[in-house]
């Protein structure tokens, strides 16, 4: 995770910012520069609610490089209230306690660090919804 790339992705990683097409109203996350439905290049910035539910989850025991510190961790497909699906880690709960349909909300957490001296990526994970 290079520094410039991390900086570039801050709006989506930290604020769940997507885009809504001004022509066809299509909502996309992360933000796009050209609508994949109609080709329009004008958008409104749209911040997603960050609330959703777990569609399916797994407990990961063997991770890719930079993610070993989290093992075992819960990885899931989360469906947001706006209908957008995200691949994200589930946090603040034991992996074995994550279940299909669990209500969750976006929180900002440490995702990965590139070695001892490299940049740290902070971005969204999802935690059990505290205040329905």
């Amino acid at each position, binding site marked *: 995770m290079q520094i410039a790339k991390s900086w570039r992705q801050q709006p989506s990683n930290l604020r769940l910012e997507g885009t809504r097409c001004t022509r066809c109203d299509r909502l996309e996350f992360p933000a796009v520069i050209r609508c994949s439905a109609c080709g329009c290049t004008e958008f409104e910035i749209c911040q997603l609610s960050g609330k959703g539910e777990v569609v399916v989850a*797994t407990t990961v025991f063997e991770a890719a490089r930079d993610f070993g510190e989290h093992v075992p961790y819960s990885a899931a*497909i989360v469906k947001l209230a706006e209908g957008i699906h995200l691949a994200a880690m589930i946090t603040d709960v034991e992996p074995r306690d994550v279940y299909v349909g669990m209500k969750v909300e976006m929180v900002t957490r440490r995702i990965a660090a590139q070695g001892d001296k490299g940049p740290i990526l902070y971005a969204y994970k999802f935690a059990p919804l505290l205040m329905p």
Partner: protein
Amino acid sequence: MTTGIEIIGVGLTKSAEKWEMGLLDIAIRAAGKALEDAQSESPDAVVVANAFGGALGDQQNLALHLASGLGCCPVETYCVACDDASGGAAVRLACALISSGMHQTVLVVGAEKTSDALPDMLETVRASGLDAGREASFGFSPTIAGALGMQQYLNVYGLDKALFFHIAKVAHEHGATNRNAIFRWPLDEAQYLKSPIVATPLSVCDTAPPCDGAAAVILRKSKNGSGHIRILGGANVSRKRGIVHPITELTLPAATESAAMALKEAGCDVADMSLLELHDSNAFLAALSIEAVGLAKPGEALHRAADGDFSKDGKAPLWTFGGHKSRGLAPGASGLYQVVEAVLNLRGDAQRNQVPSATKALVQCLGSFGAQAVTHILG
């Protein structure tokens, strides 16, 4: 587009951890075997499928280096990097080069060297075939996506995890007699059930072992009465990227469309196939592939495997040399292994892996967790 192209030579290396050989050496070995098999003069184009050579810190622009090593320069060279679909896409590109009249004889080589990388590094590089910004950067890899898909498959269809044993069983049954396979033993259910979990519910036995390997074919415009195996149809379909669709919808639209288009060009039906080589980098994608090409209805792939449909003497022999699961997964080369193995069967040269009276084969490889699918019909 592919009609009228024949395969005049094939070659492959054993799938293994080849500590003594580099990526280029492996590619040269397979290419040399194909050239000997074809008793062909130098090709006038070389297409190389290699998914991760550059990312793993090995050779980039492998096609140029291969051509140089083979001593067939000057020649036109191309590299194809489409994740695990690289092999099929390279064959498709070679067909286009011949069909367009640009070239007469094209050498296509798939090669990959995975064993020099530590497992977590290899998983990172393999994850780069997914959406780098939204999936790989968040700790998701093809293996983790396969685990999520498998869990969803079990949830939606109300199945027991043990049923997935039958996918691995078929592959190992066939790989056991393939002297080029990395895993040459039949798998029993007890072994399968005690296999270590990688990501619930997916275990080591549900994933194909990464390995080093290369496979090659030589293509040219068909000549009447040559007797060579022909490419009867082909299609390369890319759909919207992302792991979400296969996991939530349990379908692979690109695989379905690619197979249908290739079969249509070949003028045949999936039921006409004597054997099939589908993508089985993990058991979830294997099950969806079976359903995508029409060998089973949604949710029934595991039952059909348990019924013996995919054994060598079954209704639709599958993974006749062990598939990626038992033969081994050399990502950029995997699509070429499928083609070479199918050709050996159609020529009657498959020895202990021979499907009796094989006349037609469907081979399909997937890239980026099924968002891309390349299918060829051989016969």
